[in-house]
């Protein structure tokens, strides 16, 4: 390889590193993606420079074909289907590594010098990881897409079968070593890798899929890394191991955010969505939000209305809400409170508490005065309020609060609701606001969670 190519590889490795670094920061994420794309282009061009141009037509055809397909799907896919798309692309990446490994195997096994130990180990690893990545990603894709039930599919002896397959794989791998010429053993490896991918993903439930995809993503990085060892190529190793390692960490972070352990996720059978529909009433499907994301939502809002309720009083969260206000005002975010006339348990309950927290009177707006402003508001933060923002009061004549005027929190662009659980309010009825598409639940004691949100915001600035 020419030195220039090597230097180009070095530069693209650096670009990948910077790309990943930036992707982890809200502000720079897009720049990060561009950087790593430039790194990729550089790596491709450098590779081409070194290659025999005679095969250029085929390569061009392949690249064009792949490029068009990739671009088409990337453009067309609905935003909600992005996880599926990532799974699909990831599977293709895994399959590509798998194919390169096989290709190299067949090529080298025909050459005189043959395959050395490092080559063989790398090829076998590449087949295993690439194969698992491929079929695993496909199953994940089908589950997410709804083509296959999102429910975990479990059966007895599942783990035993996986273990046995692995043992067979190892035996076949040893046989390949001893007899590299025999394609049968390679075929066994191929089949087992593909089957393992399927078996490891089917027992995992729909809600856990993002974690699985992240893990498979990490695998595809490792597969690329193994390919790098096959081809003795640094940029593959750097990029592959970067993705491999960051993917594993990311997987763990995601598990933690879901309060699950990785083992727990992988062993499967737990993946039901969190949701607290009562036995009566309609099924409300909710979206949860974490404190970090909540902090980001505040950070990016330009207007915020807080709707305090009895839960704020119970949690004694008024002081920390004042801190939240200070953080927002530091960012020039318009910050007000919408006081429902019967919020809390006594007339003026919210007033007493907010005054105690030294929140100036002119931030507190009566219901009538603020109700029209909700639709122009980026973010409504409902703190321990329930009945006073329950749309049932407008729509459901059967509900005990029908006819009570409520705060139009649901009209805002985004609503975050801080409460401990799906527990009901004073009136004892379900609140369908919690299931609205623009509503995110921030579960936990209001004081504790908001303290964390404020902490995150302080770090951001």
């Amino acid at each position, binding site marked *: 390889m020419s030195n220039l190519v090597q230097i180009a590889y070095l530069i693209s490795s650096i670009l990948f590193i910077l790309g990943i670094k930036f992707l982890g920061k809200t502000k720079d994420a897009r720049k990060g993606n561009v950087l790593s794309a430039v790194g990729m282009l550089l790596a491709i061009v450098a590779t081409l420079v070194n290659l025999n141009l005679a095969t250029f037509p085929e390569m061009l055809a392949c690249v064009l074909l792949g490029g068009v397909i990739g671009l088409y799907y990337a453009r067309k896919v609905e935003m909600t289907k992005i996880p599926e798309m990532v799974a699909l692309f990831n599977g293709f990446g895994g399959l590509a590594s798998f194919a390169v490994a096989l290709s190299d195997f067949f090529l080298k096994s025909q050459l005189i010098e043959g395959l050395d130990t490092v080559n063989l180990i790398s090829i076998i690893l590449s087949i295993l990881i690439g194969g698992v990545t491929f079929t695993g990603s496909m199953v994940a894709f089908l589950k997410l897409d709804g083509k296959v039930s999102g429910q975990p599919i479990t059966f007895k002896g599942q783990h035993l079968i996986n273990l046995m397959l692995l043992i067979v794989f190892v035996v076949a791998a040893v046989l390949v070593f001893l007899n590299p010429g025999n394609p049968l053993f390679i075929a066994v490896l191929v089949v087992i890798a593909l089957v393992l991918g399927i078996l490891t993903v089917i027992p995992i439930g729909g809600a856990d899929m993002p974690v699985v995809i992240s893990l498979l993503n990490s695998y595809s990085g490792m597969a690329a890394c193994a390919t790098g060892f096959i081809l003795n190529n640094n940029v593959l190793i750097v990029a592959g191991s970067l993705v491999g390692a960051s993917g594993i960490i990311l997987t763990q972070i995601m598990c933690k955010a879901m309060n699950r352990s990785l083992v727990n996720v992988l062993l499967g059978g737990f993946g039901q969505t969190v949701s607290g529909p009562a036995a009566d009433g309609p099924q409300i499907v909710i979206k949860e939000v974490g404190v970090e994301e909540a902090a980001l939502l505040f950070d990016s809002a330009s207007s915020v209305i807080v709707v305090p309720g009895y839960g704020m009083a119970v949690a004694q969260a008024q002081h920390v809400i004042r801190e939240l206000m200070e953080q927002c005002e530091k960012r020039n975010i318009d910050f007000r409170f919408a006081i429902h*006339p019967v919020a809390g348990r*006594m007339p003026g309950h919210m007033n007493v*508490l907010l005054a105690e927290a030294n929140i100036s009177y002119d931030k507190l707006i009566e219901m009538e005065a603020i109700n029209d402003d909700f639709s122009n508001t980026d973010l409504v933060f409902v703190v321990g309020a329930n*009945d006073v923002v329950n749309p049932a009061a407008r729509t459901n004549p059967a509900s005990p609060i029908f006819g009570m005027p409520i705060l139009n929190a649901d009209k805002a662009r985004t609503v975050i609701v801080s409460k401990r659980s799906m527990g009901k309010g004073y*009136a004892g009825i379900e609140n369908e606001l919690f299931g609205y598409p623009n509503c995110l639940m921030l579960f936990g004691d209001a004081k504790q969670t908001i303290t964390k949100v404020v902490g995150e915001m302080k770090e951001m600035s």
Partner: protein
Amino acid sequence: MQIGVLKETKENERRVALSPDVVKLLRKKEFEVIIESGAGEGSYFSDEDFKAAGAEVGPASAVYQADVLLKVNLFSLDEIARMKEKSACISYMYAYQFPQIIEALNAKSITSFSMDAVPRISRAQKMDALSSQANLAGYKAVLLGANHLGKIFPLMMTASGTITPAKVLIFGAGVAGLQAIATAKRLGAIVECTDVRPETKEQVESLGGRFLTVEGAEGVKVEGGYAKEVSAEYLEKQQQLIRDKIKDADLVITTALVMGKKSPILVTEDMVKSMKTGSVIVDMAVESGGNCALSEKNATVVKHGVTIIGEANLPSLLPVNASNLYAVNISTLLLHLASKNGLNLDLEEEITKGVLITHQGELVHSFTKSILNQ
């Protein structure tokens, strides 16, 4: 439809049933309003204010010609005598206590509505004068008590020594009790509260008060938010708890009511004796018999060195706010019951059923009937 507002005749009553702001609102809905001259004085609303808002101001005789008469306090027999046949009236009534008034109203086929009977449902919150007035009363009780107390509420560490904070003990965490907690707490006192309803614990604590739990708090029936019946055993235990706590209290505020019944005696003479000289009791239940054995209605007495305040009409001491809120309550109820063309009753509707006492010469209110038939 013409709405008439009479001047209150009860002693020391400074409230009035409508405020200029609310008159404006009613005028916008094309009601006619006539106010007795001088009716708003106690609340610092002048006749001019009312006129500016669009009301007619006239003598009582003119007001009695209105289709519906509004007052804060119950209409007296004299007043009923001056009312038109088949007209309507709204005020506090506590009808189960006054059968002769019901008879008088029925004799004239007057349709009467009682503000104290508004059902406590979410929809009716804006008409709930009990809440709006109790809220003010809770605030005022603390101020009155603090004013009679020979010491200040907050802790103060000064060069001339440390002033320890006052201890305030509150019975009943209903609307008035909660507001009393909030106010006493604001002023810097240490506040403790007890109530028969266990769910009030959280509410008391949400305002920074300490809740005193009666061990084994079973045997309390709660219905529609009201405490209904309390077992003898419970009362016994409660008494013990109170006995322990009341010795240290500087200010005691009692708000315990049981609807339709005489209020429970929570502070006995013995307990008063055990209190520190100079301490103060405000008995907010004095109207319905009192929670303190020694309290006297509408009087402030000193017994065993303890000042006992039996002011029966606390909201009237905050006439501006009280009238403003009452006016919103009564007008909201009125708008629920009537259009500009007259009353428009749906006798099956929950709120109407709740507030309607007499109609077409008959007592129709079931709760009142049930009490009177006992």
